[in-house]
């Protein structure tokens, strides 16, 4: 049984999705989702233990050899992502019941859980598979489920957001598949490890470079890299709160993982940064994200949109780590994926709790909420401090490694810019914090109670994790460092 | 402040100073620098220090006085 853990991770939520769709009633569907969430978390932990003990695991689907069949591969690079997905699924699903029930009509709740599990399936699949085309299929599974999930939002703008995301997501996926086609032509295989091996002797260097460009730009659209991020704010702002929590914590992270996978273990950092101006371009775009999107976040009047723009900025840090191309930068980028998932998960959960209580997440609604919902707002504040990168929070750890990476790469100006961009985060978080804790509650405002325990506990858990992993960096940074060592060992 | 009280205070202080001057001749000194072991040194130094402090404070006071309470 245990040797089938990789495929089970995909199969469990997949069948869970079918089951949730079949039962049709909210209660049982939630039970299925919860069970799947915890099962996935358990499997992820099991895989992490197995990989740390025995090295990479290769799982052949149906027993076919990698060059013919599809291979799942668990190694140091995707273990953090699998853990991220598993733990987020488990923690977030607890949050789901009350939040979903309050925002969706009863008839659609079961469908929503089915979509959620499908999306989870797709994301796990992307993280697990070692097959370029299989990754495309999983990408589309998760994307299609995501479009539908976003469209279930209460505001009619959710429909437009979902439509826009669908167009952009499909273009991105198609770019990706075009790129994979070029690689297939050049190497005759779809297995990522085999592609990596055969790229060296491939004759059609031009096809390889073209394939690389298509793959990178295609994934960049899913990552929401700066100029391609325009779909994200509306999608996050108008989706049901739980969908925002889940997507905000996982979706873009998995896309960034895919980017890491292609850049470092398929093409190799040397090739990517030499063949294309990737390094300079990526640094420029990442900085544009960190500054541009963060500045936009300062002026938002809807907190979900504010956090969504902040996500675009924060993703800039992850891609910045990739662009630096050295061990410290890469560690920073990877660890930021995990840390940002915690912080943004906690932040979106807290905002979801406000939506649950107040039915709105406009900025004005937060005035004086610190008195009414102290625990929720404390979690939001901690998450906000993490986004700024205050020492003692997880956000500081990732920025620390990024700054270290920038210094090692001989770019002290970049380290300064990283610090400077934190000031923008200080402004948008400060705006929120000032509103929450220092303003009085409007006199005519209705009384608000603290969020119910089901929403509060996961929120506080992620906020506590933000602090815990800011103080105890061994686990997260250890995972990221192990992955980095694996990549640089495997890079050509 | 009523001058009568002040006059009495000066008298009392003068008596105390005289008393201390007397006592200073009686106690055993453990000087660090020599001069500080002389009887009456403490009185002289204290008085001089007070004079210097007052002079300095008064001189500087004209420069640094700013006025009303600042209400920001």
């Amino acid at each position, binding site marked *: 049984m245990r040797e089938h853990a990789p495929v089970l991770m995909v199969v469990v939520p997949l069948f869970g999705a079918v089951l949730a769709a079949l039962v049709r009633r909210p209660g049982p569907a939630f039970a299925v989702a919860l069970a799947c969430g915890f099962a996935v978390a358990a499997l992820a932990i099991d895989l992490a233990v197995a990989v740390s003990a025995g090295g990479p695991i290769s799982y052949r689907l149906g027993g076919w050899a990698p060059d013919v069949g599809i291979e799942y591969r668990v190694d140091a690079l995707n273990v953090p992502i699998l853990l991220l997905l598993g733990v987020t699924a488990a923690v977030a699903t607890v949050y789901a019941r009350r939040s979903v029930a309050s925002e969706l009509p009863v008839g659609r709740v079961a469908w929503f859980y089915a979509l959620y599990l499908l999306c989870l399936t797709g994301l796990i699949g992307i993280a697990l598979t070692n097959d370029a085309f299989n990754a495309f299929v999983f990408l589309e599974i998760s994307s299609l489920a995501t479009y539908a999930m976003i469209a279930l939002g209460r505001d009619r703008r959710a429909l437009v957001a979902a439509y826009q995301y669908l167009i952009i997501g499909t273009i991105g996926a198609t770019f990706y598949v075009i790129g994979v086609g070029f690689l297939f032509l050049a190497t005759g295989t779809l297995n990522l490890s085999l592609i990596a091996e055969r790229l060296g002797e491939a004759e059609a260097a031009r096809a390889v470079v073209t394939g690389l460009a298509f793959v990178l730009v295609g994934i960049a659209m899913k990552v929401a890299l700066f100029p391609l991020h325009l779909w994200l704010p509306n999608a996050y702002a108008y989706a049901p709160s739980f969908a925002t929590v889940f997507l905000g914590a996982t979706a873009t992270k998995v896309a960034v993982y895919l980017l890491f996978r292609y850049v470092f273990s398929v093409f190799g950092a040397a090739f990517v940064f030499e063949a294309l101006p990737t390094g300079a371009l990526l640094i420029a775009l990442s900085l544009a994200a960190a500054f541009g999107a963060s500045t936009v976040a300062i*002026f938002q009047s809807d907190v979900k949109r504010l956090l969504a723009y902040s996500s675009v900025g924060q993703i800039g840090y992850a891609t910045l780590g990739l662009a630096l191309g050295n061990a410290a930068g890469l560690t920073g980028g990877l660890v930021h994926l995990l840390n940002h998932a915690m912080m943004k998960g906690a932040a979106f959960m807290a905002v979801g709790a406000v939506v649950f209580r107040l039915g709105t997440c406009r900025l004005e609604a937060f005035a004086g909420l610190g008195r009414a919902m102290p625990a929720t707002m404390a979690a939001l504040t901690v998450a906000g401090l993490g986004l700024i990168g205050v020492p003692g929070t997880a956000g500081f750890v990732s920025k620390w490694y990024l700054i270290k990476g920038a210094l090692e790469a001989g770019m002290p100006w970049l380290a300064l810019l990283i610090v400077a961009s934190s000031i923008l985060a200080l402004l948008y978080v400060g705006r929120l914090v000032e509103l929450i804790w220092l303003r009085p509650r409007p006199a005519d405002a209705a009384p608000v109670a603290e969020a119910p325990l089901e929403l509060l506990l996961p929120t506080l858990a992620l906020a506590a994790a933000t602090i815990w992993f800011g103080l105890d960096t061994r686990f997260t940074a250890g995972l990221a460092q192990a992955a980095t060592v694996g990549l640089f060992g495997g890079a050509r | 402040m009523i001058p009568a009280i002040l006059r009495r205070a000066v008298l009392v202080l003068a008596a105390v100073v005289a008393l201390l001057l007397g006592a200073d001749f009686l106690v*055993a000194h453990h000087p660090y620098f020599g001069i500080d072991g002389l009887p009456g040194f*403490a*009185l002289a130094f204290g008085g001089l220090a*007070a004079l210097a402090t007052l002079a300095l404070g008064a001189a500087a006071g004209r420069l640094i006085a700013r006025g009303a309470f600042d209400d920001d």
Partner: protein
Amino acid sequence: MIEAVSPALPLLLGAALAVLLRGRARDAVSVAAAVAALGLVLLLPDREGGRIGWLGFRLVTVAVDPAARLFGAAFAIAALAGIVHALAQRNPLERAAALLYAGAALGIVFAGDLVTFTIFFELLAVGSTLVVWSGGRRAAALRYAAVHAFAGALLIAGAAAASAGGVTTFAAVAEAGPLARGLLLAGLLVNAGAFPFSFWVADAYPKASWSGAVFLSAFTTKAAVYGLIRLFPGESALVVFGAATVVYGAIYALNTRDLRALLSYSIVGQVGIMLMAVGTGSALALAAAALHAFAHVVYKAMMMMAAGGLVDAQGRTPLGAIGPFRRSMPVTALVLAIGALALSGLPLTAGFVSKSALSAALGKEGAAFAWFLLTASSAATFLYAVCRPLLLIETGAAARPLADPSPSRLAPMVLLAALTLAIGFVPAALLGRIPGTGAIAVLTPDHIVFQLAVLAAAALVLLLARAVILPGAATLHDIDSLWRTPLWRVVARWLGRPVATYGRARAGVVAVLRNALAGLERQHGPQGALGRNWPTGSMALSAAILLGATLLLAYI
């Protein structure tokens, strides 16, 4: 197990809980946290514990030695007394901020390496700024925040430069380059309120709430003194800075009309004395500096409590207004009197004990300049803390019926006053616990006569020269006047140009800034180019352009 628990921990936890809890639960948790911290300070064994690996650094959160324990005890006592005193304060932010502030102070004291030390100093800045902020004077809080952000940046930069080689022990500072040492020294001096960085002390402390000022008077400056003992023992520049600070403190304290400003300036002056001792650098001098810090924390905290009672009763504390309070608030007045006498180093108070130790240490080291200045400063302190306030007192009835504050505010004052006197009466009880100072004889006839003679002569001089008695002013110009009333406004006045020039220029600058902000909002706001909704087509176009650009760059 206990050796791994920093005394900062219960206070920091208490700060977190104070945010979440309300009412009696919050009071109970706050007091329990302070008690736990004091207990830990007294019970921790004399060695390193609590090592943590963090980002590749080896952090030591608990390192106990006599100096750490002495400062720790002072801070924990001040924290406990301050928290009990502040139980009547209903501002929830201030409670949490005070606990954070106290926790950071203890964290600094028990830090065993440079990184932990710096981190706690940053926390200290955050906590103290919040305490000032919760006093309600926003502009003062922002000025305070700016100064401490600057000091924090200096410290971080210095710590980073000193540990560039990967060694983050305190010893690494001694071998660090001049840049690293200079940055660290400057950061600590700003925090200590040494001249010329003293302006922030008397700017911020009198503007805190009646309860917040107690914490402020205890922690920041003394934590910086502790830092200097740790990092810069025997640094000769400290004697110069200390001397200037002593003079500054005396001049300003003699000219202020406000009780809490006077207490703030006297903090600065006493810190100056400590700096001179640290700069002298012998083991005894360092111990004496620590002892003076301990005594000063104790009596200054209780004076701030008493001043807080007056502030609370009448809103402001001009020195002259103490008169009417003498009869209606007898305990407050008595505490204030004991504090003022301790400040001047009158025998049988804690101030006499620590000043005797300082005098002995400086004398044995042959540091004549520091010793004579210390002695002179006793006279000066007596002038500004006792004689001048007595002369300024106005008689007459109070505007409204007044009484001593409630028992929860009175009890800590009285206990601290008792402690001040107890140390004064039985110096050996405290001196015997500090290595090296046990041999100092304090209550000998020659010491007593010496100190009394200095004070009496000073008082007589003031009485005889009362014609020049300094009326003082409510607020005093300081270094910060240079930027608070911009230099060019002063220049414009000198040049005889109307001040309107300044006003017009300021309006122009404000307009430019406002336009810039509006422009930023046009670009980034909800309707701006970067923030608005874009049609799907343009998103697709930007993707195509990015792809095209990438390919084009790849082929050229």
